[in-house]
């Protein structure tokens, strides 16, 4: 875990430093009356020290190591990225476009494009999932899902 620890160690060190500065500006107060930043200042100093230990261990173990295995498997990274993009698009479009059309398109995209299933299967499953999830969450559990473009239907 040499290289992975070097990367993560640097990340958490930066995180700790940022939080130490933020907490300091919030005010540490006195011991009699600890301020808003008191606990977080000290917690992040400890976090910073621990990230340094992770970093030093990683560097100390660097010598004599063979070639490092890749942190991420290559084959499916693109799939993960495409799925994550669709999730972020789902959130952004959910309120303006509405739950029903976005959920339908989300399933068409995942099953038809990412998983490359047959189109009639994809359309059938997408319709069934959209209708059933709407009935469960909106009609039964009254979750108030966004209606978006279908506002005019008032169902």
């Amino acid at each position, binding site marked *: 875990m040499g290289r992975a620890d070097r990367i993560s160690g640097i990340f958490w060190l930066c995180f700790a430093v940022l939080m130490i500065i933020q907490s300091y500006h919030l005010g540490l107060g006195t011991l009699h*009356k600890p301020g808003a930043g008191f*606990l*977080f200042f000290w*917690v992040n100093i400890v976090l910073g020290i621990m990230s340094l230990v992770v970093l030093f261990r990683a560097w100390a173990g660097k010598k004599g190591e063979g070639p490092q295995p890749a942190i991420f498997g290559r084959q499916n990274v693109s799939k993960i990225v495409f799925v*994550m993009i669709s999730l972020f698009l789902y*959130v952004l479009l959910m309120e303006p476009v509405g739950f029903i059309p976005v959920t339908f398109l989300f399933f068409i995209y995942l*099953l038809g494009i990412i998983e490359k299933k047959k189109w009639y299967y994809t359309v059938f499953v997408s319709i069934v999932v959209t209708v059933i999830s709407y009935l469960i969450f909106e009609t039964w*559990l009254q*979750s*108030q899902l966004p209606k978006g473009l279908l506002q005019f239907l008032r169902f």
Partner: protein
Amino acid sequence: MDIFQSVLYGFQVALQPLNLIYCFFGVMIGTLVGVLPGLGPAAAIALLLPTTFKATPVSGVIMLAGIYYGAMYGGSTTSILVNIPGEAASVVTCIDGHQMALRGRAGPALGISAFGSFIAGTLAVIALTLVGPLLAGIALRFGPPEFCALMIVGIMVLTFLSSGSMLKALMMAAVGLTLGGAGMDSISGKYRFTFNIQALLDGVGLVPVVMGLFGIAEVIENLETEIKREILTTKVKNLLPNLKDWAASIWPIIRGSILGFFLGIIPGGGAIVASFASYAIEKKVSKHPEEFGKGAIAGVAGPEAANNAAAGASFIPLLTLGIPSNAIMAIFLGALMIHGLQPGPLLMTRAPDIFWGTIVSMYIGNGMLLVLNLPLIPLWVMVLRVPYYLLYPLILLFCMIGAYSIGNNAADVIIMLIFGIVGYLMRKFRYDAPPLVLALVLGGELESSLRQSLMLSRGDFSIFVTRPITLGFLIVAVLLLVVPIITQRKKLSTLEDSP
């Protein structure tokens, strides 16, 4: 109220038709979640939390509890039939359970794990009934320093038992504490760590974080390494174990129940550790240790009993002290708070319907699980055949709807997605998520008890060493930190690698 009257009152609450229905739904969904790999009880409780908003607090809590112990039952089914643990506490069941299935004894394996779970679950609930009021009585005498020290012990135990590096687990606890500080400071009224982002003004919500770390991250990880599942095609028959099976299983079940109960009660312990410890013990005391790994029924009965007893016992620190003992209880704490309840020693007197109603519903739920699960096994096997390309879009959709309906707010969904990516990276870089979640939940309470203690003592830290209970807790915390450094720590989790 004495205990007898209290339990009677609990039955009155739990037997109300509506509560029975919620209990039924809880255990059914729990079993389903346990069966499905890629969705653990932590994510499931977080996911379904918004569905309880319309219910009364009692019904909601009863259902969420049902999901938790129901998942412990369901997890064993996949371990035995497919050799894939539905959730972490059933990892051990794979070893001998699947071997039994390969030898045509899937029926008795499923049967004994259901009976073992039932016996252990019931014993744990009885113990919870007896120990709960006692502990709550002691906790009533706690002041801010005691609570502060107790929470530190809780976090320390969880990092001590974490599956990876303890150093990294401690780092995650520190990150969790810091995240818990985001939003408005309740004492000074200042906004902290919001970076002028609107969504952070109310703080980082527990539910989106948990759904991200345990739900979304799990899906991403599974997308990377496609799950291949081979389902046993033979018919499952003879679910009822015979007399010889019972003779071999009864003591492992009893030992597993006792062990599980005590490990479950310790903050940071819990079902996973209990099941591994029970397996190790059964192998050691067995007259035929060579049979372990080749389909020994004791290797199924013991761990299954232990993980159910631990699941029941882990409610004790939460309901009596307000301290969650593991990540799932941390979400449970969040759920109680959303329903306007403050778990702790006062819960029993302020909301006896919640306390006793929930406990008694566990007796009923355990009974339901036993009756339901054996005949429904063919249905669960069918669920297992649902292909992953259909399952993961559904899990993602449920997470999205769940996170949105917490506050009808897209910001919560974005927080969940970000923590999904963070959670995936944490898995890749070998950082444990449970300490982060526990510290995030306890953060607010820990900070205010620390600040109150220092105000009480006028800034004198000796308040933490002059009070005997506080000193005791802190000594335990320090030992947990120092012992692994001095001795070569032999972790229970290394058992995970040995079979």
